[in-house]
């Protein structure tokens, strides 16, 4: 089974599934919404989550979803966790660039996610020239993960500057890294497997903005074993989500 742990509904679902089918991707985990909003209001957060909920309801065998949150609105975030995860079909939450995840609000959220046994998909960049004001770095995530060892995090994009990103989170065994959202640079997956172990690496694409093919290439093209590829492509997400 191939599970894409990181997609966004920025193209029509039929079109996305057409290309997913051509790449034999079985399940796609949605987050954010059809338009990216860096600092969404509570109403915009709910609209994104309702949008993805409908896709999961229409295509229950293909789409899973993370609830979008803006941690600047802590009470709303906790209510949205209840609405989407406790009462609904969502598998976890997505934290993008509204607030650095080192903030105390994210501690409260991470604690609740651990209680639910759900996932946190956290965008991370080490951006040359400096991150956006609310953009988390791998170091921010490592600090949060240290404080919440019972919470499972997926560090998105390997931190972009991935040699530095991967080395930042070696010790945080509750952090997995995904493969998505940056160019298909040779060596990424080998280094991730060498430093973290294949059980801590999951395939993701960042589609529809990224090509499924370019991101799958990081797994298919890596000099790792076939069993490691199988784990990264879907085995690890199957295990974590109990699919």
């Amino acid at each position, binding site marked *: 089974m191939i599970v894409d742990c990181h997609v966004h509904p920025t193209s029509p679902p039929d079109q996305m599934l057409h290309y997913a089918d051509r790449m034999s991707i079985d399940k796609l985990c949605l987050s954010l919404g059809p338009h990216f909003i860096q600092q969404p209001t509570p109403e915009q957060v709910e609209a994104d989550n309702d949008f993805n909920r409908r896709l999961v309801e229409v295509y229950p065998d293909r789409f899973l979803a993370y609830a979008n949150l803006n941690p600047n609105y802590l009470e709303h975030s906790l209510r949205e966790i209840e609405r989407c995860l406790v009462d609904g079909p969502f598998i976890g939450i997505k934290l993008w660039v509204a607030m650095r995840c080192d903030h105390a609000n994210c501690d409260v959220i991470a604690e609740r996610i651990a209680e639910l046994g759900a996932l946190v998909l956290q965008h991370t960049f080490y951006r040359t*020239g400096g991150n956006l004001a609310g953009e988390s770095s791998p170091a921010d995530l490592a600090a949060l993960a240290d404080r919440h060892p019972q919470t499972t995090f997926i560090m998105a994009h390997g931190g972009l500057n*991935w040699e530095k990103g991967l080395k930042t989170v070696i010790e945080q065994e509750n952090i997995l890294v995904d493969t998505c959202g940056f160019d298909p640079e040779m060596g990424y997956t080998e280094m991730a497997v060498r430093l973290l172990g294949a059980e801590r690496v999951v395939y993701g694409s960042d589609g529809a903005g*990224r090509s499924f093919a370019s991101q799958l290439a990081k797994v298919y093209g890596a000099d790792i074993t076939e069993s490691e590829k199988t784990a990264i492509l879907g085995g690890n997400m199957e295990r974590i989500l109990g699919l």
Partner: protein
Amino acid sequence: MIVDANANLGNWPFRRTSYNDPKRLLERLARVDIDRAWVVSLDAVMYKNVHAANAPLAEMAAEYPALMPVATINPTFPAWERDLVECKESLGYRGVRAYPNYHQYELGDPAFDDFLAVADDLDMFVEIAVRMTDERHHHPLCMVPPVELAALPDLAAKYPRLPIMLINAKNTDLVPLIEPTEGMENLWFEMSHIEGTGGVEQLGRSLGLEHILFGTHAPYYYPESAILKVTRECEFSEEEQEAILYGNAGRLLASAGP
């Protein structure tokens, strides 16, 4: 037959690369059924005198018929014209690459116009590398913006016999060119950096599939990326796929000199 129109040999200063000598590169490309590759010297990009890389690259590639070397020239450096003539007439190069951003000039500068004129006279083809790596993670002491392409349509129109290839151009670089380059037979677009689900299919049809060149940017990129885009993700007819994988490259070479 698959021709990779964008492969690299040598060392990149900011990351250790594997498969970066001719033998290992060809073996790595063969894993995804790529038979031939047009190669540049990664070392040349950051040399002050870039021409120092051209003779060694030609010598290295001469032992491997599957490789076609592409020279590097900086038209703001003294004696570049003499160097380019040497590349064509003594070293046997058919194509030459420019790095306007790394070598700090604009496409609209007179030096680049002079460079195109000489390449045209020599019946060579010209490659313009829009970038080499993602700007968002450049080394902090070497942040190099992508090449600004607004002047390209006028230059391509001025030299209608000269084949000009855009290398490592992303969707955001290419979309503004769709309209102003419509019908220009001498412009070619290498596809390694085209992204989005089905991106090569969608953007390629807008640019004209007959001008899309298959390229991997290996070994900096996994070559599987380009292969999977063209042969699996995108829905191309057999004829379209053959054109992208090798046919268009052959037509480009035929439109340049021997």
